[in-house]
């Protein structure tokens, strides 16, 4: 079995595609630099990530795919799901090998797989847009913590940039320990040495703006009053608001 080893970056993956077409042999498995080599590997080929090669693959795809389909591939990458790199690899191979477009052939496992995985990322992206809860700090910076299953943070910043163009904000992914800061002009990536400033995603009270606690309490009170007790339906609530997304929701904290 032919195995490709690469650095687990998106550019690395596209380089792997380039190399495979170049050597006219295609891997059955992709592994990362530190992964254990599978026993039944007959050859391990080391991919050297090369921006030039990856760019050529990407622009090659641009010629063959609608932009939605190409975006979907990026979404699949951000899913961080097991095997999503191999899925992208197989899809791209199909695209280049077929004269005609395969994009709409949803009876094909890989085409369907790309669509479904991208859909999951897109769903989570929308959920994050909904579930971000900003806390206002004393210096007028609005801070929010998220911990999505997929690496979708970069997909939501443009929404918040246009919506809250006149306020400084940070949205921080506590699972992946990085965030984005908008300073009224540009958005840049940020990391923090430690999380004492926002334990469990909650801003330290000493850092909060004077009225922050009051508005949090108002929001909680409002949320509570909304429920119609004759219609209580925890199952329906769970379906829309899965447990794993609840920890940073102000209205559900005590």
């Amino acid at each position: 079995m032919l195995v490709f080893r690469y650095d687990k970056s998106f550019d690395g993956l596209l380089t792997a595609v380039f190399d495979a077409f170049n050597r006219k042999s295609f891997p059955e498995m992709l592994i990362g630099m530190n992964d254990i080599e599978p026993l039944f590997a007959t050859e391990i080929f080391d991919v050297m990530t090369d921006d030039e090669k990856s760019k050529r693959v990407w622009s090659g795809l641009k010629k063959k795919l609608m932009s939605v389909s190409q975006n979907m591939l990026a979404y699949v990458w951000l899913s961080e799901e097991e095997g999503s790199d191999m899925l992208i690899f197989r899809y791209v191979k199909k695209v280049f090998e077929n004269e005609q477009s395969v994009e709409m052939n949803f009876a094909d496992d890989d085409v369907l797989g790309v669509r479904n995985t991208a859909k999951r990322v897109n769903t989570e992206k929308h959920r994050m847009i909904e579930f971000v809860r900003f806390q206002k700090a004393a210096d007028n910076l609005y801070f929010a913590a998220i911990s999505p299953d997929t690496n979708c943070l970069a997909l939501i910043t443009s929404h918040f940039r246009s919506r809250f163009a006149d306020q400084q904000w940070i949205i921080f992914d506590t699972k992946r320990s990085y965030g984005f800061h908008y300073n009224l002009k540009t958005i840049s990536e940020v990391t923090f040495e430690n999380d004492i400033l926002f334990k469990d995603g909650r801003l330290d009270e000493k850092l909060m703006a004077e009225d922050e606690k009051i508005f949090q309490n108002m929001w909680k009170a409002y949320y509570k009053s909304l429920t119609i007790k004759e219609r209580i339906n925890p199952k329906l609530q769970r379906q829309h608001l899965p447990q794993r997304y609840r920890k940073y929701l102000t209205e559900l904290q005590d």
Partner: protein
Amino acid sequence: MYPVKEEVIDKLKILAESAKYDVSCASSGTTRKSTPGGIGNTAGWGICHSFTEDGRCVSLLKIMLTNHCIYDCAYCINRRSNDLPRATFSVSELVELTIEFYRRNYIEGLFLSSGVVRNPDYTMERLVAVVRDLRNIHRFNGYIHLKTIPGASEHLVQQAGMYADRMSVNIEISNEENLKMLAPEKDHASVFKPMQFIQQGVLQSREERNKYKYAPRFVPAGQSTQMIVGATSETDKDILFTSASLYGRPSMKRVYYSGYIPVNSYDSRLPALKQPPLVRENRLYQADWLMRFYEFGVDEIVDDKFPMLDQEVDPKLAWALRHPENFPVDINKADYHDILRVPGIGVKSAKLIVVSRRFARLRTTDLKKMGIVLKKAQYFITCNELSAANVNETSPTYVRSLLTQSKVNKKQPHTSQTTLIFPE
């Protein structure tokens, strides 16, 4: 901004309690771009920020300006004869609350209604003041839904429409006699007149915008209304025919159905219900969906012979069981419109089928892989292979019995067609 007083929390609780029975919470139907120096934008797709314990979407700050009311509508918790805590927001308190909630990404905007104080116009003026301040002073670009006061004058409705994205006037009771019985101060004119004003405004602004691109918009997300279900004697046919005629008007975007919740159980004009009629409400939404997205005419869904929707099965399945002559539908050949009529196949699935079958003939396994649930559909389709005995080879009665067995412990009835998350 203004200093926040603790008593605002108490007002908030009271006025949210009073507003929560209005079921609409949609924030979709229009886009509003962010402006330099302004706050916010409107996305165009419904954004729910949270979900309450009853599973309903929280999108807008749904609140009343005051729950004092001079009227005495029997179905309403805020009627003047009820002894309950009353409160009134000042315009500035409500404006501040909206902005502060919005900046924290709690909400998409404001859904404002009010009890009637002094007279309809006095009340309407206060509502207009709130939305005017939000738009003009704070340059707020979030979503605003304004519930019009029944009986308000045309010039006030016209003003409100310059600021609101959506406006609504609730019919509540579709039969005028019944409405007058329960809400003696109201009649259909007090509801349909403001609806008419809104519609005129919408049409007029459309025309002007055809001529001048920058003519102001008027209620760009159109209007909506609500009917209470189960408080009076109307059949589903009465209700759905009212909806159908409302949807025939150019500005009407949504009709909501609200299962009657006995908030005033002491009032003998109202039925004593143990529970709100949630199944009936759900079926009405499904029927409404069929009219708006599935190309069904209202008379195909209910008629004199079947004035009530089937409680046991959804209205699309009920229709299919009444019309076995239209089935089975060949997934690989049939027209999109016929596939759309297959029970259990939604708009997205129908489209997916039509694009995918160009590449290869589809088999049931392909359909399953695409996420199409065949539980109901299997009796109404043929695929590339031998399929389960269809509705004509057996009988509608038999298929019904298969599909209604062991209803206990089932999940929510097919949420894909019924949820209110993205009601647009």
